[in-house]
């Protein structure tokens, strides 16, 4: 089976079958491997570039979030100090990961929670399915979670006859349309209001027949659709944004209140969390609760944050299970040059500033982790050969916005270099990869703003030069430097020099 199409949400009579492929359905279906699906990046990107509607939807959305983010980040006088602290806390977490995980386990257990460990997706899905079965439930409500998307939990549960209902509005839209998310934070960013209205009318049995495409009405239709499920659900499944080792506290940030519904009303709560999501102490929350909302939605704070420690008698779920997930993370950790990808707090800021993401959208990356972070994390998690490190102009914008200072461009360069040795740089591969890289570069050249952001490339090149001469460029530049040396680029780009000169006048 290569594609899973039998979504639990597409109930009998709720709409046409996916095969009928009405305009609102993605045709992507649910891939078997959420970290690797669809065409190769260059091919998928080419197709996406021809989709004008997609680019308009994306362009509008990313520029809106960029503007909001810049405004609220500008309000914070100690932003850089917070980034430094966030980055250092995460480095510390990875260095002490075994001890901190054991500490977390101890504290969760002491407060009445049960901790499970899962080496891979299959094991994690098995644990969750067994827990749900033991409760006799055939439907569970879900809070949006990257970890459960990464392991294809919904599909695994469906095969066991358990329907997992996504309760985040955007995830619900994606689920109803038998689609894949295209953005970490706003998974339905590629859909406009009319498409969403059509999806609801086709696939949501209780949608009002005269539903319009006004966002408020669409949101109210979703509220109505989900309310009954919330009030009657026995089991909920969530991810976690943070887990505090020294207290055993879990935290989920969200906006709609669907998270609070799932985390509070059911009798049993199952949380699936990547092993890197730890922070050492409760006080460290003060750093990340400032960095995350401003970086992701461009808000000073998200409307709701829930924190719970084990179970609280008489309040909320009386049974709590925490599933700690590896699924490739220890592979990433073993890579000293790339391990900081595990610092990621999934804010999605890097997607919104990426000139490549803005043009091709999330589906082209063929992974639940798209954009710059996806370009480094996906190949690291899977350990597979990948074109994704070329899905970048190396403009450096992602590094500048990253709240935990992951140097994505440098990791991309490193991964590209490795891709060469991996592939042995056969002429066809070299040609294919070179074209992908050039395509990315041509996005950057296409307008001034992008080009300015791309101007950071020379600075990266300077970092690898010796005595003012670059003897070996990372691939595919190595094809060039193999037979000649490049002069080191000037300290300042022409653009920066001009801007400075204008300022001084």
């Amino acid at each position: 089976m290569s594609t899973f199409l039998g979504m639990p949400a597409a109930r009998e009579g709720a709409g046409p079958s996916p095969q009928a492929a009405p305009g609102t359905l993605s045709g992507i279906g649910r891939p078997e491997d959420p970290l690797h699906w669809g065409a190769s990046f260059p091919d998928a990107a080419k197709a996406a570039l021809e989709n004008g509607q997609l680019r308009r939807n994306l362009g509008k959305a990313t520029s809106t979030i960029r503007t909001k983010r810049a405004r609220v980040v500008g309000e914070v006088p100690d932003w850089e100090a917070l980034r430094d602290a966030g980055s250092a806390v995460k480095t510390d977490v990875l260095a002490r990961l075994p001890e901190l995980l054991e500490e977390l386990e101890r504290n969760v257990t002491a407060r009445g929670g049960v901790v499970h460990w899962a080496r891979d997706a299959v094991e994690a899905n098995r644990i969750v399915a067994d827990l749900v079965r033991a409760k006799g439930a055939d439907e569970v409500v879900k809070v949006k979670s990257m970890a459960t998307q990464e392991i294809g939990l919904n599909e695994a549960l469906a095969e066991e006859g358990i329907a997992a209902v996504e309760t985040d509005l955007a995830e619900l839209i994606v689920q109803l349309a038998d689609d894949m998310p295209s953005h970490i934070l706003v998974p339905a960013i590629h859909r406009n209001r009319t498409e969403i209205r059509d999806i609801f009318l086709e696939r949501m049995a209780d949608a009002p027949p005269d539903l319009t495409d006004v966002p408020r009405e669409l949101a109210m239709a979703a509220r109505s659709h989900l309310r009954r499920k919330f009030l009657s659900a026995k089991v909920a499944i969530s991810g976690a944004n943070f887990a505090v080792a020294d207290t055993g506290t879990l935290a989920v940030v969200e906006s709609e209140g669907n998270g609070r519904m799932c985390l509070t009303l059911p009798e049993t709560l199952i949380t699936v969390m990547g092993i890197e999501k730890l922070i050492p102490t409760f006080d460290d929350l003060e750093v990340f609760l400032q960095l995350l909302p401003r970086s992701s939605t461009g808000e000073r704070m998200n409307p709701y944050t829930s924190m719970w420690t084990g179970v609280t008698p008489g309040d909320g779920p009386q049974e709590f299970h925490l599933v700690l997930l590896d699924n490739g993370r220890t592979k990433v950790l073993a890579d000293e040059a790339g391990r900081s990808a595990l610092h990621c707090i999934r804010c999605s800021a890097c997607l919104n500033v990426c000139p490549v993401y803005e043009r091709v959208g999330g589906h082209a990356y063929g992974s639940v982790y798209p954009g710059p972070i996806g370009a480094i994390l996906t190949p690291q998690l899977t350990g597979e050969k990948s074109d994704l490190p070329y899905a970048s102009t190396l403009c450096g914008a992602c590094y500048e916005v990253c709240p935990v200072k992951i140097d994505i461009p440098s990791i991309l360069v490193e991964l590209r270099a490795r891709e060469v040795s991996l592939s042995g740089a056969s002429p066809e591969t070299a040609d294919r990869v070179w074209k992908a890289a050039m395509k990315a570069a041509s996005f950057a050249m296409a307008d001034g703003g992008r080009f300015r952001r791309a101007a950071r490339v020379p600075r990266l090149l300077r970092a690898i030069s010796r005595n003012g001469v670059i003897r070996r460029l990372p691939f595919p530049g190595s094809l060039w430097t193999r037979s000649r040396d490049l002069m080191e680029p000037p300290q300042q780009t022409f653009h920066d020099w001009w801007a400075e000169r204008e300022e001084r006048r």
Partner: protein
Amino acid sequence: MTDARTEILSRIRTALGSDAPGPTAAGVVPREYRSAGEHAPGSDVVLALLVDRLEDYKAHVHQVPAADLPGLLADLLGRSAKSQVIGSSDYRSPDVLPTTRESATQESAGRGAVVVPAGLDPAWLSAADVDVHTDSRDAPMSAAELDQVDAVVTAARVAAAETGTIVLDGEPDQGRRAISLVPDVHVCMVRTDQVMQTVPEAVRLLGAEPARPLTWISGPSATSDIELERVEGVHGPRTLHVVLVS
């Protein structure tokens, strides 16, 4: 066969290498960021900041001396219980409204129903013409019962002005998490001396009792999932009143 726990921990240790820093070699975290604001809790500047942030989030803010609280609550609850959701005229038609409760109360327009946590000062609601249900961990209302209630009144633990955030920690005057979630209107009372300027001040105060269930609230429920247009009110309370009590 090794169990998953042992194997993952050993994979991590291998990944970190033999020379990996042990527990003693923890990295030093620079903490140059502000751990507190320059203004005192409850000062005029801090209160003004909180009001500004909350209003930006479409919360309704009221400032009253403690003596005027019962009158204000009578006013707010009378209005929410009878006219239903404030701003409901924005919704196109009653059939789009989510639950039977909301449309039913609209028709009956009788006395509204309000839920309060057991530890809330009963005098506060003495002037309100509503049916008051008391909820506690020992005698919890079911989700379905809460769904029949129009509004909830709670106290709060702490507020952070710079982000417009109020935190509830489940103590008897704030109640179980479900009561501030299911009813459509939340009236949350914050004493002015509980208002801190920054997030770190709030986190450190909460850190004294970190195991309590915490709910951080910044404005009413909202979504921006459709073309990033913000819509207030999805699953949580669609209306948030914050009452600053001096």
